[in-house]
């Protein structure tokens, strides 16, 4: 409120740029505030999605018991919970936090610009995203409840209210996801136009920090993969609301068409989330190893190849959908082939570490954690990529554990690597290292204890997406139930450790040690402006003289060499 008063006392509005409370925090056009809006929405939705996971994990460990803070779970609610957990974690946590928040925050700073090229388009992007969030959450309150047909929303289950029991919830879910996609397409246009056109004088394409490259590759991949799904979602929405039969076999439609459209997007989407994270990890590794990144150009080209390959692997999600076995062989080959470029990137990042003066600060721990845990996800993926094994594994919790071993390292480990690394820039203060380490080790250990049991349960035949296993005596033995309780307990421990982070986050934001411009002695332009950066970012827009990774250059006194420092 004081801000409003100050503005009104300010007098001459025409002569200089005054910001009111509303223009500053509710409808900002500044890329950093929009990034913070995305980040905070993402963190809140992370808690919401986590709570849903808590409810259904409790139901699996103690079937039929009343879950504290929620109550008893019935089958329809269980379905809605798993559907919305997945939808939220992918579309309302991973996308806004990893791409929208970091993209908005870092792109203008790292390329030495004062803002995005289209600040008002950027604002519109967040507003659409916010509306989509509301639609998704309000769906819980409508008659029939929220959509429960899984995040893949396969028709014909998803396309008729009488099949899924959520005649209003299902179209609302599709609408929310569609609006979210629109928001990120608008944001993506902005990201790409900004990176292509607004770099600081002297910054060539090969002087752009890897994370900015990767965010742009991810945006491009998103754009190319999501289009068919947008078209497919329109048809699904019409099936649900108007009553057409594009995907309903009784009306002459074909449900497998939707599966193709969905997975043509759904698989690259994993890479859309992964690629920016690997960029963040690369920035952190090179900074904390005090060493120039190994093979900058190769990393970028390899990632472009990975992106292209990821567009031709989608049908490995459909091995059990009755697709032609000859097609399954082709998709097995491309799926397993994609591990080659990713392995190359891993090797290059490890080569960056080799011989460096490594400091294990909290962001570095998260980055290393991301690489280590993601390896488990990647290697189990090679088994699943083979169609013969996949037919057994696909609908049990092995695939679920595999998926969480890819997405959790990417979203959670990678996300927290980014948050802890750029926290000093966001708020001008340092996070507490000890609390950060407690949070890291507590989360890492409990995370593994959640999902390792699910690999074993899956191999023993535990089907996923089942509300209560008591109807299946084969997989409802005491040994099975013990593992379920074990995983759920590990998850409760995991949740408990998140409160350490919440405390650290707010405590450090208010009273942490002042960070200064460049606490990690980094080279990139984001660290060469005040923390937090003012409106317009740089007092004087920088000029770039060299690449972003000139660490420990022989013959120089300091071990870093900012991009904008004249030779």
């Amino acid at each position, binding site marked *: 409120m004081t801000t409003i008063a100050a503005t009104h006392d300010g007098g001459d509005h025409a002569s200089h740029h005054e910001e009111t409370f509303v223009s500053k925090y509710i409808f900002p056009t500044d890329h950093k505030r929009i990034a913070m809006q995305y980040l905070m929405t993402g963190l809140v939705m992370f808690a919401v999605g986590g709570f849903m996971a808590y409810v259904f994990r409790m139901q699996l460990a103690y079937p039929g018991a009343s879950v504290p803070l929620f109550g008893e779970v019935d089958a329809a609610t269980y379905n809605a919970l798993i559907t919305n957990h997945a939808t939220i974690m992918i579309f309302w946590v991973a996308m806004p936090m990893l791409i929208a928040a970091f993209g908005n925050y870092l792109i203008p700073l790292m390329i030495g610009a004062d803002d995005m090229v289209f600040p008002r388009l950027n604002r519109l992007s967040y507003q659409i995203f916010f509306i989509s969030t509301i639609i998704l959450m309000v769906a819980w309150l409508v008659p029939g409840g929220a959509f429960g047909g899984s995040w893949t929303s396969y028709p014909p289950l998803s396309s008729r209210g009488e099949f899924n029991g959520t005649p209003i919830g299902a179209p609302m879910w599709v609408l929310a996801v569609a609006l979210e996609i629109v928001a990120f397409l608008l944001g993506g246009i902005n990201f790409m136009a900004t990176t292509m056109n607004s770099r600081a004088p002297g910054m060539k394409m090969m002087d752009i920090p890897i994370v900015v490259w990767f965010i742009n590759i991810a945006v491009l991949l998103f754009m190319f993969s999501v*289009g068919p799904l947008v*078209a497919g979602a329109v048809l699904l929405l019409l099936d649900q609301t108007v009553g057409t039969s*594009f995907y309903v076999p009784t009306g002459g439609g074909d449900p497998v068409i939707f599966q193709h459209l969905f997975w043509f997007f759904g698989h690259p989407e994993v890479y859309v989330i992964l690629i920016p994270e690997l960029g963040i990890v690369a920035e952190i590794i090179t900074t904390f190893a005090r060493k120039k990144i190994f093979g900058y150009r190769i990393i970028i080209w390899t990632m472009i190849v990975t992106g292209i390959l990821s567009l031709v692997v989608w049908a490995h999600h459909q091995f059990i959908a009755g697709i032609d076995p000859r097609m399954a062989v082709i998709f097995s080959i491309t799926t397993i082939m994609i591990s080659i470029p990713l392995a190359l990137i891993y090797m290059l990042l490890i080569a960056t570490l080799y011989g460096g003066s490594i400091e294990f600060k909290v962001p570095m721990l998260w980055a290393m954690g991301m690489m280590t845990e993601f390896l488990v996800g990647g290697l189990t993926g090679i088994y699943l990529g083979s169609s013969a094994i996949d037919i057994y594994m696909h609908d049990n919790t092995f695939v679920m554990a595999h998926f969480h071993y890819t997405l959790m390292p990417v979203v959670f480990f990678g996300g927290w690597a980014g948050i802890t690394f750029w926290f000093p820039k966001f708020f001008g203060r340092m996070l507490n290292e000890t609390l950060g380490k407690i949070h890291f080790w507590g989360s890492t250990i409990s995370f593994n204890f959640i999902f390792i049991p699910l690999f074993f349960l899956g191999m023993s035949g535990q089907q996923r997406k089942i509300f209560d296993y008591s109807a299946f005596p084969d997989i409802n033995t005491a040994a099975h139930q013990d593992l379920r309780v074990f995983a759920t307990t590990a998850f409760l421990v995991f949740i408990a450790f998140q409160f350490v982070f919440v405390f650290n986050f707010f405590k450090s934001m208010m009273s942490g040690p002042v960070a200064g411009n460049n606490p990690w002695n980094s080279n990139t332009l984001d660290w060469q402006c005040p923390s937090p950066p003012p409106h317009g970012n740089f007092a004087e827009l920088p000029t770039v003289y060299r690449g972003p990774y000139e660490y420990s250059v022989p013959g120089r006194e300091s071990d870093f060499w900012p991009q904008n420092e004249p030779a």
Partner: protein
Amino acid sequence: MAFQAPVATDRCNTGISTGKLAIWILLASEIVIFGGLVAVYLLLRLHEGAAWGAEAAHTNVVAGAINTFILLTSSFFIVLAHQAAEQDDRKKAVKFMYLTLLCALGFLVVKAYEYTYEISHGYTWFRSNFWGFYYTATFIHASHVIAGGIAIFIAAQGVKVGYHMNRVEVCGIYWHFVDLVWIFLFPLLYIAK
């Protein structure tokens, strides 16, 4: 509060103005969306076989051909508007932009006539997947015609006073795309039986 464009908007590393660059990126994403739509068309058609063609025989080829002609003419007008804007002839540019809008309106009138005729003769959205697809695809395309028309109208108001003359070209690029989508839809929906 008056909005001040940042320095970033006027930078030009690629040599292509930011607005033009952004519209190309937008079109790239639109192409994939319509690409998906055409893919659905192909898959549904393969799935349904001869039944699809029998339904498709009832579309009005003459109306479709007239609309193709109208849209191609409108693209020609927007090119003339761009040429006039380059020569800084505001009056002429606005005139050709309004002629483009007139064509857009003509297109929508013909389309509305077709819809009315078809619906009143029982060829509704629910009749078969061909008609479902026909209405969906043409409706999405028509919404692009309307959006492009609104954009051209807004740009024309600026052009009158010499504000943002580059918008003529940006609108023009978008308009050509709208035209091009129709060039795909016309044979798929009207000619292929």
